[in-house]
């Protein structure tokens, strides 16, 4: 398991390093995460980072329940293993749901999107402040001047896909977001599936007959690794 995790860590490192290299390639126009991930369920305001912070909390929490499941496994306490492993599976599903929600808002974007000017600059609109245009360098334009810019714009980009996104004139930003968080999300999904399989095996008493709970420890390692990767994705995609 450790050998596999080292190779998987190299894969994730390469993806994040590629992200870093391209970010250094386009330092002026790369979207600021604080302007992109601003949504929170049921709150109609700008709350950047709070939701990803919550997702991080959920994943750390499910890591703790997994350690407790492994710990119970060492004591051969079947019921306790089932309880903690069950909570870990719940945590995994909550995280996957959160990620789906995050993707939805990233793809959908704001109501009016961004207006692309003839010189290639992106003027973003904001649902909370209608009629106000914001540029990447922090310039804010409003009123008649903003209306004139909208009228002269060559294109209106809403949300994000693989070829363009309203967050900036960098299609790579969307590509990296979909690929890295998607790749991580797929790891979480695989982890949940493997956890469910082990849960069934424990439930059926397979590990008791084997008199060995090492299987729980192995999936535990994988699950912590997924948490570890998220810690890095959280920092390099959302914080810096």
């Amino acid at each position: 398991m450790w050998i596999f995790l080292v190779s998987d860590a190299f894969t994730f490192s390469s993806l994040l390093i590629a992200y870093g290299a391209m970010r250094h390639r386009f330092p002026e126009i790369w979207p600021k995460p604080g302007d992109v991930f601003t949504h929170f369920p049921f709150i109609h305001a700008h709350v950047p980072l709070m939701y990803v912070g919550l997702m991080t909390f959920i994943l750390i929490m499910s890591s703790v329940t997994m350690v407790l499941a492994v710990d119970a496994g060492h004591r051969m306490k079947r019921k306790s293993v089932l309880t903690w492993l069950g909570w870990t599976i719940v945590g995994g599903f909550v995280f996957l749901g959160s990620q789906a929600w995050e993707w939805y808002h990233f793809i959908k974007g704001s109501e009016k999107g961004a207006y692309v000017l003839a010189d290639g600059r992106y003027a973003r609109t904001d649902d909370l402040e209608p009629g106000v245009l914001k540029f990447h360098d922090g310039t804010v334009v409003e009123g008649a001047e903003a209306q004139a810019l909208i009228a002269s714009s060559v294109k209106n980009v809403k949300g994000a896909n693989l070829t363009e996104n309203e967050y900036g004139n960098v299609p790579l930003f969307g590509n990296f977001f979909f690929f890295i968080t998607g790749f991580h999300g797929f790891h979480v999904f695989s982890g949940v599936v493997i956890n469910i399989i082990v849960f069934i095996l424990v439930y059926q008493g397979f590990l008791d007959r084997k008199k060995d709970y090492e299987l729980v420890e192995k999936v535990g390692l994988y699950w912590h690794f997924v948490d570890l990767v998220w810690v890095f994705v959280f920092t390099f995609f959302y914080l810096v």
Partner: protein
Amino acid sequence: MHHEVVSHASEEKAHSALTTKMIWKVFWILLGITLFEVGISFTGIPHTILIWTFVALTLVKAYYIVGYFMHMKFEVVPFQWAILLPFILIVYLIFIALYEGTVLGYIPG
């Protein structure tokens, strides 16, 4: 057969080092660091200092997850080296890729 018994016994000993109390302590450390990171991202601290703080704190979090949750801290030393040493290559890759990316940004067209 004999080997299995020995390795099992040593494993048991290794795991007894990680208590439930320590598990929760690591949890609070990880949660505290995450809240701190989100908190300081809203302050007016210069961006460069923020970035290096985030990188340092991320490595601290990684240390606790790998060391305690993945019980690397309780493994034998040669195993620790075997797993951790290859990551020198990652440090090198970070250096060359970010350097290359920055230089590409200066090339017109």
